[in-house]
Structure formats: C-alpha cells, structure tokens
C-alpha cells in the first residue's frame, strides 16, 4: 500500500492535499456510513416476512458488508495480487468444505 501511495503521490507532486494519499479520511467515513446503512437495512428487512428469502437476503447483505471491510478497511483492493490469491484459495476451501458437508447432509439415508 505504501508503494502504491508513493508512486501515486509523486505525479501530483504535493502531499498537502488529502487527495494524494492512498485513501482519504472521508472515503473511510463514507464506507462506514454505507456499512451502517446496510446494518439498518438488514435489521428492517428481517421484520418483513420474505419466507425462505429472508436468510438469503440477510446473508447477501452480510457478504456485501464483509467485502467492503476486506477491500477498503483491510486494503485488499490496493494490495498485490498474492493477497487476493490467498483470499481466493481460502474462500474456495471454505466453499468446498460447505459443499461436501451438505452433500452428506442432503443425501445420507
């Protein structure tokens, strides 16, 4: 992140402006506002009966919030590719674990 910020800062020359930094304070605050808004949304939606969709909607909102935290707060969006490979492998492993386990749950007789 520092490397990226340095190279990005150099062309603009000055670093007096918050603009030149990798991520400005205000961008973090905006992401936080988005996270709070999604939390309110998910709490309100839970009160509406969407039957089977309730869980899907709640999980989709949770995944959205998590990806905002991972990408912006944890800077993964601005990191080298290797960090995304790490996360991809971990995500795939978790997917496989869930799939295989549920194959067992669904089809065991």
């Amino acid at each position: 992140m520092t490397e990226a910020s340095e190279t990005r800062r150099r062309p603009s020359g000055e670093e007096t402006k918050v603009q030149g930094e990798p991520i400005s304070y205000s961008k973090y605050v905006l992401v936080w506002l988005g996270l709070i808004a999604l939390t309110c949304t998910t709490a309100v939606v839970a009160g509406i009966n969407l039957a089977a969709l309730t869980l899907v909607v709640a999980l989709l909102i949770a995944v959205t919030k998590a990806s905002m935290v991972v990408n912006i707060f944890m800077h993964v969006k601005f990191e080298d590719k290797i960090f995304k490979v790490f996360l991809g492998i971990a995500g795939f492993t978790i997917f496989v674990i869930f799939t295989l386990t549920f194959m067992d749950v669904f089809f065991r007789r």
Partner: protein
Amino acid sequence: MSEIAGTIEETEDHAKHLHRDEKGAKMGMWLFLLTELLLFTGLFLMYSVYRYLNTADFHRAGLETHPLFGTVNTMVLLTSSLTMVLSIAAIQRGRKWLSVGFLSSTILLGLAFLVIKLFEWSLEIEEGLFPGSQILLSKPNGEILFFGLYYTMTGLHGLHVLAGMIVLIFMLVFILRNKITKDDYIKLENAGLYWHLVDIIWIFLFPLFYLIN
C-alpha cells in the same frame, strides 16, 4: 580485493539497517487471519447443518435473542473499525496524537461492545437461557443446540475482541514511545487487520443469531 570485501560488508551493513520486509509481515498476518477464519468456519458449518436439521426449533429459539443488543453492538464494532483505519491514516500522515486519539476510541468501543454483551448475557441468564439450565433443558433439542452455539460462537468472538483490545493497547504504547511512526507503522496495520477480521466475523454472527423472524 579488500576493497570489494569492504564494499560488500558495507552493503550488508547498510541492508541490515534498512531492510524491512513489510510485505512479508503483512503476508504472515494474513496467513494467521486465514487460520482464524477456518476456526470460525468450523463453527459456522456446525450452525448451518444444525439449523438445516432443526429449522423450526432454530426459528423459535432465534425469537428469544435480543435484536436491539445485536444491532447496537454491530454499529459499535463497525464504528470501531472506522476509528481503527482512521488511526492508521493519521499515523501515515505523521499525526501522532490524532492517531493516538482514534486508537484509544477503538479500544474504548471494543470495551463498550463487551459491556453490552455482558448486559445481554446477564438478561438471558436471568431468563434461564443458559447451557444446562432446567428451563433450557425442558425445550426441544434444536433450541438447546441453538443456545449452545449462541454462547460458544459469540463467546469465542468475545474472547477475540478482548485479545484484539490487548493487542491494540500494546500498539498504543508503541505509538506513544515512537516505536510506531510515520515511516514504520506495519505493526499498527497488522493489528488493524486483526481487528477488522473480528468485525467481519460479527457481521456474519449478527444475522444468524439475531435476525431470525
């Protein structure tokens, strides 16, 4: 010959002082975070399977948790993540005291989260909803499982919040002693990564335990 040796020595000496593998430090941190993720994955897996097998019981039990506590705690933890990144952003700009302020807020918000959790658990224990209580044991198996998982998962998460707070207190001391500065703040970044992971785990715990209707 000796000149070359001298140059090499000098270079090595130079490298010893300047070399800081920040990317390596961050990669190590991420690998550790992924093991933490797998730890919680096991618990989420157990929750999913038991919920699938005991859907009705989980719904009934889910109505007995307190969504207000859960929602407020979600906000508290999300806000603590914000102050965490702001603390890093401040140190990057060389603003030590601003960074100290934000980091202290993060620690205090972590404490607030645990205090709210304490009130919540006290309320539930008063209602007789704790593992092994007669009231809980008289309920169907699915509800007993739900509350077992509830205490295990939020409890383990709470321990992570506590661990995170201890790490952040160390970071605070490092900043105050100028061990973390504008030019060397990888420790603070890594501590922040841990804090955000704890936040992410809560983001998933929240709908699974509090938002069942």
